């Protein structure tokens, strides 16, 4: 492994998660931010950099009493928070700031207000001109196009796809904060309400309230805080297209491949070093693409890998151990929750703790295979 680039010294989600009908979006950001500051033992005046997606960055800094000299409002979908972390690491290394707060908060269930979504697409945008006129709107509909091609190309059955939410529910059952905890069978997934073929309701994430926050600082300062430091040793980001109909290949995401490769090379790790993996899963197919495009499985083999219980509790590569977006929480942009679970696993404080995690990878998707970002975390100072 290469040198640690920065350290996460504070991390927390909102105090409550799932249904929080008495908090607005900015209150969710603030609740998570205050929890993360308490975790790190710092105050707002100690923070000189701020990043967020989905909330007004200036309003948020003012609301929290932060005077920023570095700001990042990158918003490219649910993986934006992985990118904020990557950008914060670079900003700290460049001396532009010392202590960065990254926040997320969305009222996906209570809708105070409803989270920002890129649809209906503006009429002058590419999707607004060339996809929306055909009723191709929203994630469940748009994602059906690559998924059906993937299933046909590799001869994967819909029942195999249904294993993804089923096995992730096993992780959620171990997590008292998970939104959905009841056991889920493949038959139940298959017979759930049809949303957009081949997706039934159980293959789609629930809409929940909640958020999270991270505090990032230089590696050398990691010991100054009361928390077990989590080192950021590798990051990556990329993008492909804003229209899913124009993906180069429906069976693989170029953004996933490039982002993952950057992060692994940056960290100087290979797949055998990874003890724990988070793959953003708003829908059941995303862990398949993630496992393959990050290089853990060969093309078309991820569904069998999951069915063979390698990603399940007790498996050799635990994946989405909080229950994932499909069971744990999904307010709109889930990336922060994947990061929070990676931090917990590396700290050894997760609800469904995997024994002896040294390296965790968190991989996020943005919009419909439009963008991706990947981070590698460890508790071992390289």
């Amino acid at each position, binding site marked *: 492994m290469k040198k640690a680039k920065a350290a996460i010294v504070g991390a927390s989600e909102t105090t409550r998660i799932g249904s929080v009908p008495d908090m607005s979006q900015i209150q969710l950001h603030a609740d998570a931010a205050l929890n993360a500051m308490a975790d790190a033992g710092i105050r707002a005046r100690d923070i000189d950099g701020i990043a967020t997606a989905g909330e007004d960055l200036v309003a948020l800094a003012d609301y929290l009493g932060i005077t920023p000299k570095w700001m990042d409002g990158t918003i490219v979908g649910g993986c934006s928070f992985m990118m904020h972390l990557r950008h914060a690491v670079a900003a700290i290394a460049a001396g532009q700031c010392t202590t960065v707060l990254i926040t997320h908060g969305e009222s996906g269930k209570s809708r105070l207000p409803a989270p920002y979504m890129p649809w209906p697409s503006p009429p002058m945008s590419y999707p607004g001109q060339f996809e929306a*006129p*055909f009723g191709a709107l929203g994630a469940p509909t*748009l994602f059906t196009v690559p998924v059906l091609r993937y299933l046909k190309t590799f001869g994967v059955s819909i029942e195999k796809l249904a294993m993804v939410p089923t096995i992730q529910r096993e992780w959620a059952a171990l997590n008292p904060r998970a939104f959905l905890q009841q056991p889920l069978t493949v038959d139940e997934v298959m017979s759930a309400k049809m949303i957009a073929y081949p997706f039934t309701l159980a293959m789609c994430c629930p809409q929940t309230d909640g958020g999270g926050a991270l505090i990032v600082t230089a590696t050398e300062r990691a010991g100054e805080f009361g928390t077990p430091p989590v080192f950021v040793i590798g990051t990556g980001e990329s993008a492909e297209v804003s*229209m899913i109909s*124009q993906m180069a290949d429906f069976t693989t995401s170029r953004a996933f491949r490039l982002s993952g490769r950057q992060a692994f090379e940056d960290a100087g790790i290979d797949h055998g070093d990874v003890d724990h993996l988070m793959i953003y899963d708003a829908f059941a197919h995303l862990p398949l693409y993630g496992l393959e495009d990050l290089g853990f499985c060969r093309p078309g083999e991820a569904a069998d890998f999951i069915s063979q219980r390698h990603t399940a509790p007790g498996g050799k590569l635990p994946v989405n151990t909080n229950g994932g977006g499909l069971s744990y929480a999904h307010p709109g942009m889930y990336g922060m929750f994947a990061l929070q679970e990676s931090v917990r696993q590396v700290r050894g404080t997760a609800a469904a703790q995997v024994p002896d995690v040294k390296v965790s990878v968190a991989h996020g998707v943005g919009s419909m295979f439009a963008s991706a970002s990947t981070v590698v975390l460890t508790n071992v100072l390289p």
Partner: protein
Amino acid sequence: VPYAVAVVELEEGPRMMSNIVGCSQTPQALQLDMPLRVRFEVQDERITLPFFEPVEAA
């Protein structure tokens, strides 16, 4: 509703989003890779959209 969102590959090479019309809107009838032909449908005075239907359809 239901309606079929599909990406159609044209003989000239480009791919485009469209709807498959002129057949039953079921997974059984909507097979990937089936041959299609364009069917322009007037939406209003200004807008006409290219839909596609199975070649077998009349």
